[in-house]
């Protein structure tokens, strides 16, 4: 693939933490590339370094050494404010625990990233948030507050929030971790349809049955990439249909 379509490029990424007098090597030299339109799952057990990797990919943390380019921009030696701007313009976050603002309408939750972008007018913010909510199928729930929404709906709001700034990549951190199987499949189906629309998505998970809905999996173990391979992608919509009908009792 050509360099223009490279969304994320990491080379020899290392991250060392100092805990007390000990050095902990969370990432020991990771190199990979995510190209535009890919739906990548990053897998690994706890302690494999996937959270550290995600924090670096999300520009919340800086690598100890190695290079990281997002959308062609080197992240090294950026100030905090510059990193904030990169997060604001280039990245959409989806968290395990949704992280919606309580007692704030879905629409306003989705508007939030645009609030920190001075180039977006009030009206534009509103329109883009509405559009994003339509995209995740919550057109009728715009005025609902998080406590009026189910877990799956809350995660949809969070996904809409991740999409509203039109990021180059959506980073999802165990986005189905708090959801039951049926709702997880629904969310994965949503991610798949976003992928079909051309979105680039990196999905961190430790569940292999979730990873099968992505197109490529990067396995991490002890700070190294163990495997990086394409996935025989399953359709989440079909998996959903195959689930036994819900018992009402």
């Amino acid at each position, binding site marked *: 693939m050509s360099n223009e379509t490279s969304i994320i490029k990491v080379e020899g990424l290392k991250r060392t933490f100092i805990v007390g007098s000990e050095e902990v090597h969370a990432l020991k030299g990771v190199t990979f590339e995510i190209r535009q339109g890919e739906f990548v799952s990053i897998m690994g057990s706890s302690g494999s370094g996937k959270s550290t990797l995600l*924090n670096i990919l*999300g520009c*919340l*943390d800086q690598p100890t050494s190695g290079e990281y380019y997002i959308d062609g921009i080197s992240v090294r030696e950026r100030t*905090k*404010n510059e990193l*904030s*701007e990169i*997060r*604001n*313009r280039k990245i959409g*976050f989806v*968290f395990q625990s949704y*992280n919606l*603002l*309580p*007692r*704030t309408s879905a629409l306003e939750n989705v508007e*939030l*990233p645009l*609030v*920190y*972008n*001075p180039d977006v007018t009030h009206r534009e913010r509103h329109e883009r948030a509405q559009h994003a909510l339509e995209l995740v199928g919550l057109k009728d729930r715009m005025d609902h507050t998080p406590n009026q929404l189910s877990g799956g709906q809350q995660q949809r709001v969070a996904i809409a*929030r991740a999409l509203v*700034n039109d990021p180059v990549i959506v980073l999802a951190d165990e986005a189905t971790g708090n959801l039951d199987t049926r709702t997880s499949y629904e969310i994965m189906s949503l991610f798949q349809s976003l992928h079909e629309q051309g979105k680039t998505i990196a999905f961190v998970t430790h569940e292999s049955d979730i990873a099968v809905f992505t197109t490529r999996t990067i396995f991490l173990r002890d700070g190294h990439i163990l495997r990086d391979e394409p996935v025989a992608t399953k359709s989440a919509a079909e998996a959903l249909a195959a689930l036994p009908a819900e018992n009402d009792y």
Partner: protein
Amino acid sequence: MDILNLIRISVKALLRNKTRTALSMLGIVIGIAAVIAVVNLGEGLKQSTANQLSEMGTNLIMVMRANQRRGGVSMGGSNVQTLTVRDCELIAQNAKNITMVSPVVNSAGQVVNGAKNWSGTVYGGSPEYLDIRKYEIATGVNFTDDDVRKYAKVGLIGQTIVKELFESNEDPIGKTIRIGNIPFKVIGTLKEKGENSMGMDQDDIIIMPYSTVQKRMLGVNYLQQIVCSAASEDVAEAAVTEVEQVLRASHKIPEGGNDDFEVRTQQEMLEMMTSMTSMITTVLIAIALISLLVGCIGIMNIMYVTVTERTKEIGLRMSIGAKNAAILMQFLTESIILSLIGGVLGLLLGLGLSYVVTLVMSLPFVVNGLWMVIAFVSCAVLGLIAGFFPALKASRTDPINALRYE
């Protein structure tokens, strides 16, 4: 992030926890209310004193007997017998800025009309005394210079005396009543003046020719006081100097010697009387300011709680691109809005409180605009101070840890 947005976000956050917001601004509300109430009451007291002093007579200059020392021994002001009618005449002749002069001698005694009696005070003066002290005649006439020459047994009585000694349908004019053993004829009554600033009833008064009081009642030649009227307030100071010069010459006081009299203007009296009020007001304001400080600490405390409680929100905002400055501003705005709302409520409460108190104490209701502005600005500043450290803490949050915070 624009200001309007900041305010919207802050108001929302504050509304999310209405009870806590209300309670945390209570300290500021009480503090500001106390400051405003005390300031307004102080102003009211000052105004009331000023009003009553001006009722005593505008441009009033009083010459009083001063404490004298002879060979290191204090003689006491009331033993000084050097003020005389001659001094009055000299002042009238030589002090150009003085328009009216009246000697003052006073005495007290039992006033009797038939079966009724009342303990009254007699002021002896010249016919100008009424004008100088701003007494007006309700019925009858003033006494004349002729009455002064003849030590005439005539007098004018105030409304309190009228009420105490006469039936309501009785006309006091022409009646003869007694003070001590001296019978005198009532030739006039005075219009009501009310209490003065020290709570003295200004209508409990009998005014007679000074000569009558001097010779028939007290048997003395000296005066207790001289009251003068300056031509205008502007020349009051010049008039004082003139009076002092006249009296020094008359009393033969050498250069650098101690005066045996004291000349006071109404302005000085006002300053003397308001200095006490101002002192009390200042102390009370200081106490009120302490409660304001406590209120400020209350807000700081709540802001710390808020920041800790909303760690996750802060983490989220940072992860989606909020800069540290934006987070700092958000919490600062919240704290300033909190204290400003508290301040406005406190202002209203303070105004209401001082209004009610002035109503009850029948003081004039005076609003000190300067202090309202000071209170409002200090609220904003207090909010800024109270919010700064919590906001700083918020802006230094590490988003990675904050997002995991439970």
